[in-house]
């Protein structure tokens, strides 16, 4: 299992490599990148901030939940970026391997969906005319 927070650019190929296993024929990977717009506003860059110790603990817990739900999961790798990111930069990579492919899609989607709900990481979107902490207000 590879669970990591980093303020350096994510080496996507290395994360995929970490998710591979000789007994697993299927790797599914989700790569979240910075879009040039959000709810119609033009995004200039983003700032990510994490409560590191809790984020790592919760990431590991999400990965363990995935293994409980899909016991055939062979490898799980989750790497999340922190700091200032520009358009096109990779913010998060989730990669899992399973012997058969359907479970790889389901498990990877579960991990990214749950990550977005429970892991204490916050992003502030910077526009040309201001900035907003995403989802902070109703």
């Amino acid at each position, binding site marked *: 299992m590879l669970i990591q927070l980093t303020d350096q650019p994510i080496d996507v190929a290395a994360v995929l490599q970490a998710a591979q296993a000789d007994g697993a024929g299927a790797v599914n990977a989700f790569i*979240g990148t910075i879009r040039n717009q959000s709810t119609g506003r033009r995004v200039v860059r983003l700032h*990510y*901030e*994490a*409560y590191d*110790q*809790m*984020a790592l*603990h*919760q990431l590991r817990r999400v990965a363990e939940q995935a293994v409980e739900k899909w016991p055939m999961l062979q490898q799980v790798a989750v790497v*999340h970026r922190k700091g200032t990111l520009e358009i096109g930069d990779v*913010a*998060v990579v989730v990669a899992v391997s399973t012997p058969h492919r359907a479970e790889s899609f389901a498990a990877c989607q579960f991990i*990214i969906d749950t*990550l*977005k*709900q*429970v*892991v*204490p*990481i*916050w*992003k*502030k979107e910077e526009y040309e005319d201001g900035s907003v*902490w*995403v*989802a*902070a*207000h*109703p």
Partner: protein
Amino acid sequence: MNLSIALFGITREIVGSSVLQLDVPEGQSVDGLLTQLRQHYPALGQLSSLAVAVNNEYAEPTDRLHERDDVALIPPVSGG
């Protein structure tokens, strides 16, 4: 007892610091802490949600806080 509360994202900006030192009654509940904080910083009441983390876990409103706990405010998360 004295609590150190770690602050992130918008709560850090509202309070103006990344750690808040607070004097609270021994065994203060999570709910009681939130009420106290919202009185001091009304902008916290405007957030979509505000959770309290104790020792890296999300706490329940009735959980009691202790001086050595790692306590943090968790505004709406937006990772990914």
